[in-house]
């Protein structure tokens, strides 16, 4: 992981240049502040997720916070969007190296925005902040995986400039 920190200065220098590779999305309107998640946010995150999915998963989110938020481990990021005194959304990601033979890259594996607070640029803001975290960590790619029938989140990532990557996900039933 030290190599990522060592590359951070160089990354900063080329950051603007690389940013031009992302889609020229309209700047989101002034909105929620993006910051690292804090212990007191977990309750709001659980409620937000329950609001979206209809299923409360307190142990899951507490565990994720402990692994990605509380210790601020290098290459792990748990960010929240805070506006008007409440959590409007969150995003979780980490730098993973050499899985499936891939060089280090950033993976986003959770993003959610409060349904009534959507279409205000909160998701775009969270995504951009996570990409900045990955850039500072020294990686040049960001990836995610999503359900094929989830048109909402699929459209969101597409609108941010994401395209199909070089990997194919396969599965089989273990009957």
């Amino acid at each position, binding site marked *: 992981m030290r190599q990522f920190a060592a590359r951070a200065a160089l990354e900063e220098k080329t950051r603007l240049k690389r940013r*031009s590779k992302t889609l020229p*999305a309209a700047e989101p309107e002034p909105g929620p502040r993006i910051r690292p998640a804090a212990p007191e946010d977990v309750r709001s995150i659980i409620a937000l997720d329950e609001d979206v999915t209809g299923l409360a998963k307190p142990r899951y989110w507490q565990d994720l916070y402990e692994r990605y938020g509380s210790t601020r481990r290098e290459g792990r990021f748990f960010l929240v969007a805070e506006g008007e005194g409440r959590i409007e959304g969150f995003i979780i990601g980490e730098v993973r190296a050499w899985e499936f033979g891939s060089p280090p890259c950033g993976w986003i594996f959770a993003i959610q925005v409060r349904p009534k607070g959507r279409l205000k640029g909160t998701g775009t803001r969270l995504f951009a902040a996570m990409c900045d975290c990955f850039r500072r960590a020294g990686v040049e790619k960001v990836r995610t995986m999503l359900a094929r029938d989830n*048109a909402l989140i699929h459209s969101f990532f597409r609108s941010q400039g994401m395209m199909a990557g070089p990997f194919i996900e396969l599965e089989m039933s273990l009957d």
Partner: protein
Amino acid sequence: MKLQKATYFALYAVLELAADPARQLSAVEIAEKYGISAHHLAKVLRGLGRAGIVDSTRGVGGGYRFAGNAKRLTLLDVIRLFEPLGNERSASGEQHPNNAAGRALKLVLNEIDEHAAATFRSITISTMLKIMAQRLASEPTKETRRPRARPEGRGSGSRTGSTG
């Protein structure tokens, strides 16, 4: 992946008109830009008009304008107006023999179709316009494109000029 000619024409027209929703263009103007049949495009534009994606004005100075919501309208929405996609295709006549080979082939083709449909469903016209702008920005213009360096000419690579 190959789409039908009418579908391509529809996508060209929608992208061209959505790039500037205030602008009105005739079928001939769009057809000339894309090097396609104006007669065929006019028929396609009537289909887009019936779907509420474009508005048309008749008479001198008339033409078509984008009337959809670029942030909501997806490639799949446009494609489906002109051809079936994925599972809809088998429902519209594409048949496979009802034996092991036919069923296995159908399974694989369905997998491909589902991926294609999900991709088209995920890309809005607004996202397409962003992709187009990005590609335009990253492509060197004729004026700034540099000729390939010739092995024998040390300074030849630094000259600017049109390379066609």
